[in-house]
């Protein structure tokens, strides 16, 4: 049992960064910010109000938010148990399982979407029998969007939560167990609260990834306004005909992300 693990944050909290790190950090920030500034510079500010009051925008925004939150909820429901299993239990093939779970992170999303279609499409591995029996079909439905989002976003939650569980001090769990708490009680009362920061961070990453999802969604769920057309799909198609509209839509997506990410990140990851 590791007994000499000191929480890292105590050691670094009051340290000022070494001078060499500062310019590199500035370069990193500029690298991310400059493209956004360029985007703002190209934005059609005078037509913005007209462009953004079109129903296609509100439909896409609503669908994006709903599907990103649904995908995050599903990822929490299934991802936390998976992260626990990967972090705490030992079984043959664990490394393989972990690699498989991370696969959607490295797979081009369009390939992921095609794989989902082969699995859950009308003639898919599972989708075929289900459709024949019940006429239920994931592609071309909002559920299809949620499934595509969950597929690409789940690894972000699992990886983050697993790292959090691994770095958590297990003595508290052991103490609870010796005091008679059952495994479920230990998980609920000790493990989950201790993993809360990593769960929060993982959920945010997961939500952000789902909100921007394009490739898997368009390949698996298709594109229909109000049913499967999320913001990234609307942006992509607007780009075909009207660059100004595409930039306006992107601005909405960026604004919504900032509104959610800035306050929540501070609350959940406060150190």
């Amino acid at each position, binding site marked *: 049992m590791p007994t000499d693990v000191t929480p890292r944050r105590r050691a670094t909290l009051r340290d000022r960064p070494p001078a060499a790190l500062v310019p590199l950090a500035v370069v990193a920030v500029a690298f991310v910010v400059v493209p956004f500034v360029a985007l703002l510079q190209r934005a059609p500010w005078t037509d913005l109000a007209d462009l953004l009051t079109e129903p296609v925008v509100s439909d896409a925004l609503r669908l994006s938010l709903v599907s990103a939150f649904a995908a995050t909820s599903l990822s929490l429901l299934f991802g936390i148990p998976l992260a626990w299993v990967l972090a705490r239990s030992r079984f043959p093939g664990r490394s393989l399982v972990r690699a498989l779970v991370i696969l959607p992170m490295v797979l081009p999303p369009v390939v992921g979407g095609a794989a989902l*279609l*082969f699995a859950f*499409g*009308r*003639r898919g591995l599972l989708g075929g029998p289900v459709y024949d029996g019940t006429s239920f*079909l994931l*592609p*071309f439905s909002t559920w299809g969007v949620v499934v595509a989002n969950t597929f690409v976003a789940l690894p972000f939650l699992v990886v983050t939560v697993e790292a959090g569980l691994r770095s958590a001090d297990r003595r508290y769990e052991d103490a609870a167990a010796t005091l008679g708490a059952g495994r479920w009680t230990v998980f609920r009362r000790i493990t989950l609260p201790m993993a809360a920061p990593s769960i929060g961070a993982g959920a945010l990453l997961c939500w952000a990834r789902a909100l921007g999802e394009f490739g898997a969604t*368009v*390949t698996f769920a*298709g*594109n*229909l*306004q109000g049913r*499967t*057309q999320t913001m990234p*799909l609307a942006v*992509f*198609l*607007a780009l*075909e*005909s009207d*660059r100004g509209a595409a930039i306006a839509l992107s601005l909405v997506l960026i604004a919504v992300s900032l509104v959610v990410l800035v306050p929540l990140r501070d609350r959940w990851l406060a150190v």
Partner: protein
Amino acid sequence: MPPRSRRRLAVLLCVALPLPASAACGDDDGGRGGGGGGAGSPGAAASDLDGSITVFAAASLTDAFGEIATGFEDANPGVSVELNFGASSSLREQILAGAPADVFASANIPNIDQVVEAGEAAGDPQVFARNRLEIVVPAGNPADVTDLADFADDELLIGLCAEEVPCGEFGRQALANAGIRSPAIDTNEADVRSLLTKVQSGDLDAGIVYRTDVLAAGDAVEGIEIPTEDNVMADYPIAALRASGNPGTADAFVAYVLADVGQDILESHGFGPA
């Protein structure tokens, strides 16, 4: 694609090897002077053409233009043709942003018109091919689709190209021509290839694509003709570009596409004559 990679290799070698430029690769200046002579008779040995040109062509021209480029190179041994395929709208954006292209072949008129308006075309665009629309269904036509009227059937899974891309615009025109006011569309695909893929896999019951796409997909799909009175013809215009570093060869390539030999190749891929 072996022909393309061979051309790439040739270009690389020209850059990398210190051979006399005119012998191995040709030089741009030579082509500029004498290109006009070869343009009218592309079948004849137009040995005064040389250099390399880059042709930007709509994705639906991939197979036909691959063959045309090979034929053009064979007829003009000093010339190499680089092909860049993509959505006509993306190619237009790239040209307007200053991409090094010598010829632009678009799948619709508006995209090339924007290039003309920006002053980037050398001369007027000419229509070199036409493409008809067809209904595409999975092999065996499991949903028994017979004509455009089936596109109003809620029970079927129907896909079109998105309105923003030419095949979507034309498909909607054809439906309107056939009197289908409210088609029961389940997805508006971003391009014709992804629509075709979903029909091919059986995830959609029917879609509207170009006849050339149906031919290219082979046995995996079936095409159902749309009557001429409802059908919409897509005109494919081509133009040499003002910024070409090799205008003689660029003009000659355009002429080759418009000549019988180019037209025959296009016809063998399902395109109609201009």
